[in-house]
């Protein structure tokens, strides 16, 4: 009996369990001071570095207003004044989301933000942009008004022409609505979280000429070449 109890109280070494290994890897890859830094390099003090977080702020408003719209339903947001207000908030926050994201994209493109082993950061940004387009597209389709009918039947022909109409039937309001309120926002959210974690892991990309008078420039150039 005593031997049995002892066998249950022996704890495995942290490195022997999958939870321990996962924890060690997470802390090693993304230590707390990198995950939530309280200081940033001086070059981050520029308006062009603000548009990433502005995009996330707009996305939060999009999600919050979208949740309200799903709770109340089309009869509410098409008819009542408060419903119109939340519908408009949802629509215009999407417009701001894309405006901020495009300016963010231009800024990162012209500073070659994939330098310094940041390729995956760039790629997750591109993927989140594409999935966001699909999410916005399904949003336009499910407005249930004349505008959405026009967009739907134009898109139907386009999707059939490229051979994917059998999988994405835009005239099916049920499929469109589920994609818009469930699948696509989930994918956008996950990719954006991954994108931000990669930004934290690799750091904010410096301007191209940030270290041109310092020897440190060599290390950044070397990382690009690798």
């Amino acid at each position, binding site marked *: 009996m005593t031997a049995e109890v002892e066998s249950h109280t022996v704890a495995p070494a942290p490195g022997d369990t999958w939870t321990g290994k996962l924890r060690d890897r997470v802390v090693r890859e993304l230590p707390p001071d*990198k995950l939530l*830094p309280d*200081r*940033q*390099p*001086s070059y*981050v*003090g*520029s*308006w*062009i570095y*603000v*548009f990433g977080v502005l995009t996330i702020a707009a996305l939060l408003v999009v999600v919050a207003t979208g949740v309200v719209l799903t709770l109340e339903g089309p009869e509410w947001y098409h008819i009542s004044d408060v419903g*119109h207000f939340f519908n408009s908030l949802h629509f215009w926050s999407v*417009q701001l989301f894309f*405006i901020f994201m*495009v*300016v963010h994209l*231009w*800024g990162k493109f012209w500073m070659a933000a994939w330098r310094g082993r940041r390729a995956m950061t760039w790629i997750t940004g591109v993927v989140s942009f594409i999935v966001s387009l699909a999410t916005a597209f399904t949003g336009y389709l499910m407005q249930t008004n004349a*505008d959405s009918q026009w967009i739907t039947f134009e898109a139907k022909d386009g999707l059939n022409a490229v051979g994917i109409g059998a999988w994405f039937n835009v005239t099916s309001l049920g499929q469109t609505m589920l994609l818009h309120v469930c699948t696509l926002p989930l994918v956008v959210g996950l990719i954006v979280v991954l994108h931000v974690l990669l930004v934290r892991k*690799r*750091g*904010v*990309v*410096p301007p191209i000429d940030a270290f041109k008078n310092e020897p440190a420039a060599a290390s950044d150039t070397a990382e690009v070449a690798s």
Partner: protein
Amino acid sequence: MPPLISAALDNPATYFSWGWLQISVGNLIVILVMFVLFILALVLPFPGGHDDGGDGS
């Protein structure tokens, strides 16, 4: 729906055409706004900036 909005939605959008390029006024305005924001973000000074010697991480 307010009369002003319903009247606006009843009318076709205004389009600009230059040769092969055709674009609605709404889309053109959005693109110009993005250009203006981009230029302003590059040239306007950022308030409270100081060199703290951070390492970029």
